[in-house]
């Protein structure tokens, strides 16, 4: 009997479904208890490490050790850094900013899970190079040096757009096996400023060296993470020729929790296609702790209204992270968000 391919597929998927037993919810409870125990153990382990580190720091102080090296270790900055959860340090550009984000199985930007470093590198360059440039065609991104399979936590993938080469540096953040892009550097477009993870404010000063048509380098400041929202853009001009310097300031609208990236790129004089790009992560101080400026033209809401804070990358935007009150044109977030919000719903 002949039938439609779609019907055949439907029948094949449904044919003879194995019966599934009811299962026992006690097993779920037992597993949840095991997960709880494991989490407690990890916390205890972390506390022990902190205590041991504190003892190691205190002994030279109490014994009056005058060694210069020990003094550096006991400086306040170092101690604070040691105590801070390293996994939450924002170090990625895309698709995840922190280890906590990468570890969250519910965050998957546009269905992309990033367990393959080479695919992640190519996808990022496609997204960063193809975003919104006057309808110019998307560049052909190819890999000439894929990630080595044995690389465990960090790797470099070399990709090309046409004849231009760029190195994409990736890391596995947190304990996840998912890769995140942490920087991109092109052979013909080097970003000297800002330095990676620098604390910046608007306008951010951008400087570097490039081989570019008429010395023109375009720079975008974007959010970091699953959605690369453009927060600011500028055209910087330098000198023509081989690796000539360029510099300038790029204004941007800081928002969310203060993680972003500077993406510099050059375009083809022939068809406007992106030819090469470099990117570094930056951070900025939010206007106030946990506050988000609400652009009134986009969200016509008044002070005193309640809005829901949502991240579209989590459960298709259906999961509400927080409910907040609009005050003085800002919303103030409660606890640290599991993922940075990019959507507001007015209630």
């Amino acid at each position, binding site marked *: 009997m002949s039938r439609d391919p779609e019907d055949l597929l439907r029948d094949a998927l449904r044919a*003879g479904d*194995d019966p599934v037993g009811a299962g026992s919810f006690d097993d779920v409870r037992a597993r949840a208890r095991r997960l709880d125990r494991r989490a407690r153990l990890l916390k205890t382990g972390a506390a022990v490490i902190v205590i041991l580190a504190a003892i190691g720091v205190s002994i030279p102080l109490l014994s009056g050790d005058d060694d210069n090296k020990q003094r550096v270790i006991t400086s306040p900055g170092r101690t604070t850094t040691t105590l801070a959860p390293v996994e939450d340090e924002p170090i990625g550009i895309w698709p995840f900013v922190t280890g906590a984000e990468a570890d969250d199985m519910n965050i998957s930007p*546009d269905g992309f899970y990033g367990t393959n470093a080479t695919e992640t590198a190519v996808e990022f360059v496609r997204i960063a190079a193809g975003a919104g440039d006057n309808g110019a065609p998307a560049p052909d991104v190819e890999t000439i040096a894929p990630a080595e399979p044995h690389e465990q936590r960090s790797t470099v993938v070399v990709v090309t757009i046409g004849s231009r080469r760029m190195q994409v540096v990736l890391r596995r953040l947190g304990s*996840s096996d998912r890769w995140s892009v942490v920087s991109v550097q092109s052979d013909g477009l080097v970003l000297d400023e800002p330095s990676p993870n620098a604390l910046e404010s608007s306008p951010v000063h951008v400087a570097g060296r490039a081989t570019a048509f008429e010395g023109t380098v375009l720079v975008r400041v974007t959010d970091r993470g699953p959605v690369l929202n453009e927060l600011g853009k500028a055209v910087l001009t330098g000198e023509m020729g081989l690796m000539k310097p360029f510099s300038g300031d790029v204004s941007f609208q800081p928002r969310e929790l203060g993680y972003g990236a500077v993406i510099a790129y050059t375009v083809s004089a022939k068809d406007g296609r992106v030819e090469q790009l470099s990117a570094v992560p930056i951070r900025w101080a939010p206007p106030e702790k946990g506050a988000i400026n609400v652009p009134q033209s986009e969200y016509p809401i008044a002070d005193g209204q309640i809005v829901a804070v949502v991240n579209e*990358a989590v459960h*298709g935007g259906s999961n509400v992270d927080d409910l907040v009150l609009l005050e003085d044109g800002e919303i103030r977030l409660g606890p640290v968000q599991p993922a940075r919000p990019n959507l507001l719903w007015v209630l």
Partner: protein
Amino acid sequence: MMTAVRSTEVGEIESWYRACRAELVRLAAFALGDRDAAEEVVQDVFARVYRKPPTLRMPGEELRYLRSAVLNRCRTGMTRRAAGRRATVRLESQRPGHVRSTEEHGIDVATRDAVLAAVRKLPRGQRDVVLLRYWLDLPEAEIAATLGVSSGTVKTSAHRAMAALTPLLEDLR
């Protein structure tokens, strides 16, 4: 405008488990090709939900939430463990009496296995769309919400998946 947000009661999760477990196990089994690993994925998802109940926007949204969590879990944390167990499961699946009945769908076991093998070889995004669309008959908007992608991506993935599967399906029909 939206409906009120509500927190999930821990007691509700047990009723979700009773109502949704079978479908979720089958979904994970399709995705992983491994029934034991699928049961483990589903149990793991429920354990995590039990520890930290989600905040849902409207009643009835839990199934979408759980499908999404199971598919994500299949892609990430559980896959390596599942791969290690596959050999054992394959042997078990060859036991007499374990062969699936397919007559009522007018399709033989060999055809079914060939189609399932081809579906599992699809890229993950396309495979998930195929499962949700042709196995669960979900509408496009629901698939998009479950996978956290746009409707356009769902259409594209479905089109590409069918383009890849059609030669095999044409041969089999």
